[in-house]
């Protein structure tokens, strides 16, 4: 344990040279590539999808409305957004406890874009050895065109990424037209360049440094680990003592473990660690070393899985418990949050009414007709059809609205309506609760109630 802590402390800010991850083929590499295509596909295609004559996914910040397919979220749905953030956090806990750093290895944008950028690098500069050789080589024509080509492709991808990113906030068709005609606004230009630059910097240059030094999750995830968490690990008992040997000469393997010390696991590692030194916080669990080692094991005719996904308990020869208290707690919390989220999403009110009491006068005595209070109703129609709303008020005997009681609101708009409410003298005493009732005339499923206060002169308190 001591050595492990020391190792991490030393490693934290150790100066590092460039890492040249070697290409690897295998089950997990395929899985990673698949994840890359699916996730990047979703990101890049997202802004171009259509839904009902509008962009399917549009976070319309200027209008303060989020469109996500058939759902439109308003600032009033803030709770849903907050819930969503909490759900994302808890599911990260859940999946980390269950399967370790799945997020890091397969789904994190940092990993996914790095994968894409490394792929471009490989196209122009070749695999690990070629890249190392090219970097050592003097600046000749070959090096110049390969490096330039890579940079051009990187910048193009980064700019397109920035364009798509902004396309989630500005209608992407308009954005394209603006760029082509040169009428793009200052902020839009800025954010395209900003996000493009961030992508280029994070995926092209900083890469594993982001995971090792800059990512908060990488540092905190160990708190969610236990001995039943899935980790990528080297089977020391089986592998040691390691040593080179020839396949044709089995005698050479005498007294040695299964590790041939070919160092392929180190060469493929995107964070440049040696998995054989044990669990390290730099490991993003991408399983590239698992693939690399299995190839060697196959060649040597040894059993696969010298490096494999396993748990510490399994490694110690004990059984791995998937269903453990921690999992139940995380799952229960996650389940509860998800239910609340789904319930709120489905039962989102179609019409919202906010009642603001007029602050200038508490009440007005209007003689025989009674006591009058005035309010401003802020009505929001979240549906995509026009709503004709009927207003009424209840809570006191004889109370009624004396201004207009029907109002028409256009789809997805809000409206501010001044309202006067009158109650007879005998019921309008002191401050009392009343309820505004808003019902849609054209859709009897839509109705909502909102409480407010009605003030009258203070009566005899006896």
């Amino acid at each position, binding site marked *: 344990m001591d*050595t492990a802590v020391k190792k991490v402390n030393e490693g934290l800010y150790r*100066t590092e040279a460039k890492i040249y991850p070697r290409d690897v083929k295998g089950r997990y590499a395929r899985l990673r590539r698949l994840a890359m295509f699916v996730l990047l596909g979703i990101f890049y295609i997202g802004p171009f999808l259509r839904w009902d004559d509008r962009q399917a996914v549009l976070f319309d910040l200027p209008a303060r409305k989020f469109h996500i397919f058939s759902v439109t979220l308003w600032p009033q749905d803030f709770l849903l957004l907050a819930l969503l953030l909490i759900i994302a956090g808890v599911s990260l806990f859940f999946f980390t406890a269950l399967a370790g750093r799945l997020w890091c290895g397969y789904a994190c944008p940092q990993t996914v874009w790095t994968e894409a950028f490394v792929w471009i690098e490989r196209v122009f500069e070749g695999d690990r050895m070629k890249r190392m050789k090219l*970097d050592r080589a003097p600046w000749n024509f070959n090096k110049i065109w390969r490096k330039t080509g890579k940079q051009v492709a990187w910048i193009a991808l980064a700019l397109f990424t920035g364009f798509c990113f902004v396309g989630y906030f500005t209608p992407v068709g308009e954005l394209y037209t603006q760029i082509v005609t040169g009428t793009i606004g200052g*902020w839009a230009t800025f954010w395209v360049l900003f996000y493009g630059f961030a992508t280029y910097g994070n995926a092209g240059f900083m890469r594993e440094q982001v995971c090792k030094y800059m990512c908060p999750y990488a540092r905190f995830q160990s708190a969610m680990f236990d001995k039943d968490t899935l980790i990528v690990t080297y089977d*020391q008992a089986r592998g040691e003592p390691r040593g080179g040997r020839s396949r044709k000469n089995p005698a050479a393997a005498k007294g040695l473990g299964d590790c041939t010390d070919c160092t392929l696991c*180190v060469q493929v590692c995107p964070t440049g660690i*040696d998995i054989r*030194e044990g669990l390290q916080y730099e490991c993003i669990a991408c399983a590239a070393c698992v693939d690399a080692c299995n190839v060697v094991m196959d060649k040597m005719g040894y059993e696969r899985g010298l490096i494999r996904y396993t748990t510490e308990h399994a490694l110690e020869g004990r059984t791995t418990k998937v269903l453990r208290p921690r999992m139940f707690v995380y799952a229960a919390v996650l389940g509860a949050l998800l239910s609340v989220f789904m319930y709120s999403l489905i039962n989102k009110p179609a019409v919202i009414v906010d009642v603001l009491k007029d602050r200038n006068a508490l009440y007005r005595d209007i003689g025989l007709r009674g006591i009058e209070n005035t309010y401003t109703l802020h009505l929001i129609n979240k549906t995509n059809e026009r709503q004709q709303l009927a207003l009424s008020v209840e809570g006191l005997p004889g109370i009624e609205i004396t201004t207009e009681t029907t109002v028409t609101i256009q789809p997805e708009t809000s409206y501010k309506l001044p309202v006067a409410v009158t109650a007879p003298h005998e019921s309008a005493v002191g401050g009392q609760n009343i309820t505004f009732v808003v019902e849609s005339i054209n859709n009897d499923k839509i109705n909502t109630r909102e409480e407010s206060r009605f003030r009258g002169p203070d009566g005899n308190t006896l």
Partner: protein
Amino acid sequence: MVATSMATTDPDALTRGPGAKAWPRATQKRAVLVWISFLVAAVMSLLFFGVFDPERLLETAALELGEGRETGYALMFFFFWLGAAVAGWLTLRLTRRQRP
């Protein structure tokens, strides 16, 4: 934790090629500072603007900061970023260990 070093070969010699300069400690600190404050600013902006409308805020501020919600969003985001970065920078400075 399985962590006993038995490396017979220096892994660094294998992974480290020539080329890019290593990140000095100061660069790493700066990178962490900028990145973490960026993430915090992003989350803060999300939560903040879930509640407040930048247009109204700009009106209330009565400053000549330009028009439209986009400006409000952007300025507030950078304001958060700056605030988080200043806090982080001061924390780093004040918790710095003395060199022997």
